[in-house]
């Protein structure tokens, strides 16, 4: 689905944030991208949908080369890639529904979007997505009236509303408490499975990543230093990614069972209504 070839980015400041990254993500796979701050995780994600211009290398989405696209063609390719942000990046003063519908902006013309007259199918889909993320009641609330976890759900709904082939997720839980973080990660994993989306999730928290992703890619100073199963994250590997540290306590123990709480899901839905 997604293929990166020799992706390289050097910022005008001289920082070499990505150095020849090769990566392939098949449809339906959730990849956790880990690495220390400044490793280039955000840069990698932004080079894919071209919020950042890569210096060299290429990005293929379903065999279409994205790095050459301009203008309208770039916009058409962007709507196939949903993006989810750390600080949610919702448009605070718009309603939840408008935020979700903004996921359709690549599909509708200016006047329709200006008058908020989206096609009926888009609106029905938006209600459906909001229902899926548990925010049906919040349609007409303003985004800045929501809690962190709720905002991130709106962020997910906005990305899903694009009907993307690929999800780019930048530190989705870094601003959330541990319990909400798990709920959000679980939601992400579920929707990716339902729609067989290729997904890249930048994540700080190694234990959380191990719990919810199928594959881990470790990035250090713009270079991929690990690519494999979550179980393969031994202290040696972590040292390779993050540098010297005592890792035994941050790796997920086998008895730390993730399957425990459908309870949390219900509790959260209760909390929402």
């Amino acid at each position, binding site marked *: 689905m997604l293929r990166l070839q020799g992706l390289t980015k050097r910022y005008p400041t001289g920082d070499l944030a990505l150095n020849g990254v090769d990566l392939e993500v098949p449809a339906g796979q959730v990849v956790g991208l880990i690495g220390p701050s400044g490793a280039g995780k955000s840069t990698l994600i932004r080079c894919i949908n071209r919020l950042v211009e890569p210096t060299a290398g290429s990005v293929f989405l379903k065999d279409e080369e994205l790095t050459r696209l301009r203008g309208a063609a770039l916009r058409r390719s962007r709507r196939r890639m949903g993006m989810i942000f750390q600080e949610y990046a919702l448009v605070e003063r718009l309603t939840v529904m408008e935020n979700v519908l903004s996921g359709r902006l690549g599909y509708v013309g200016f006047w329709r979007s200006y008058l908020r007259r989206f096609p*009926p199918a888009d609106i029905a*889909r938006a209600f459906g997505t909001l229902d899926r993320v548990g925010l049906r009641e919040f349609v007409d609330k303003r985004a800045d009236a929501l809690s962190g976890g709720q905002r991130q759900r709106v962020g997910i709904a906005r990305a899903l509303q694009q009907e993307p082939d690929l999800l780019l997720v930048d530190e989705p839980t870094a601003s959330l408490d541990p319990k909400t973080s798990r709920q959000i990660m679980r939601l992400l994993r579920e929707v990716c499975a339902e729609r067989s989306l290729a997904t890249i999730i930048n994540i700080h928290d190694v234990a959380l990543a191990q719990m919810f992703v199928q594959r881990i890619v470790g990035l250090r100073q713009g270079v991929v230093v690990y690519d494999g199963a979550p179980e393969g994250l031994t202290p040696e590997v972590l040292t390779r990614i993050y540098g010297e540290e005592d890792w035994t306590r941050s790796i997920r123990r086998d008895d730390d069972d993730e399957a425990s709480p459908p309870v949390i899901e219900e509790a959260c839905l209760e909390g929402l209504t």
Partner: protein
Amino acid sequence: MSEAAAYPSTWRRPPAIERPLLRWGLVAGAVLYLVLAVGSLEVNWLRVYEGLERGWRFVAGFLHPNFTDRWEDIAIGMQESLTMTVTSTAVGILLSIPVGIGAARNLAPAPVYYVCRAFIAVARSFQEIIVAILFVAMVGFGPFAGFLTLSFATIGFMGKLLAEDIEDIDEAQAEAIRATGASWLQLINYGIQPQVMPRLIGLSLYRLDINFRESAVVGIVGAGGIGATLNTALDRYEYDSAAAILILIIVIVMIAEYSSSYLRKFLQ
């Protein structure tokens, strides 16, 4: 997806004003006002049409400003404007300090507070040009009337902002000074001054800028400054000289803004 049909397929953004009566009332009121306002404009289109030619000459004057023909008048006007700006800003700020302290609820006794607030309200409500008319009537034509006008306006402006600043200060710091047994003056010096001083300096520079712009205005009613020169030039339809004066004003304001932002950084 089959269940998609179960969801509503229409949605309207909730209106900004929920009560429909109020919403449409406001819209109707605004439209009605606009119709009445535009309808009551009495424009002499013939005169405007004749004016277009003069307007064009003014634009042309802006492209070819004439600094030389009226240079004597312009130089005197500028000299008056600049000197009155400096003196009135200095005097206005000095006097605004007691007025500002007097108008701060947390420092001044009630009678002083009301007197100072009333003074500030009057000084701020009247445009400089009206005040200038009264001062010209009192002390005669010339830059001294302009100086008095700008000083008066500066006191109102700075006094209000200073009083608000003092009312907003961190009480804890003032309390700490009071607790040492300091006198009222020591309280001002140690507890208040350090907190309001940086903003006071910034505002003073801003007011200097305003005073220069206003110094161009008071001349229209005879209170000295570049405004008188400009008025004369326009009376004689000398648009190239008028454009030269306007350009000078713009350049000086630009220099003032530029150097005051530099100075503010330097002083902090």
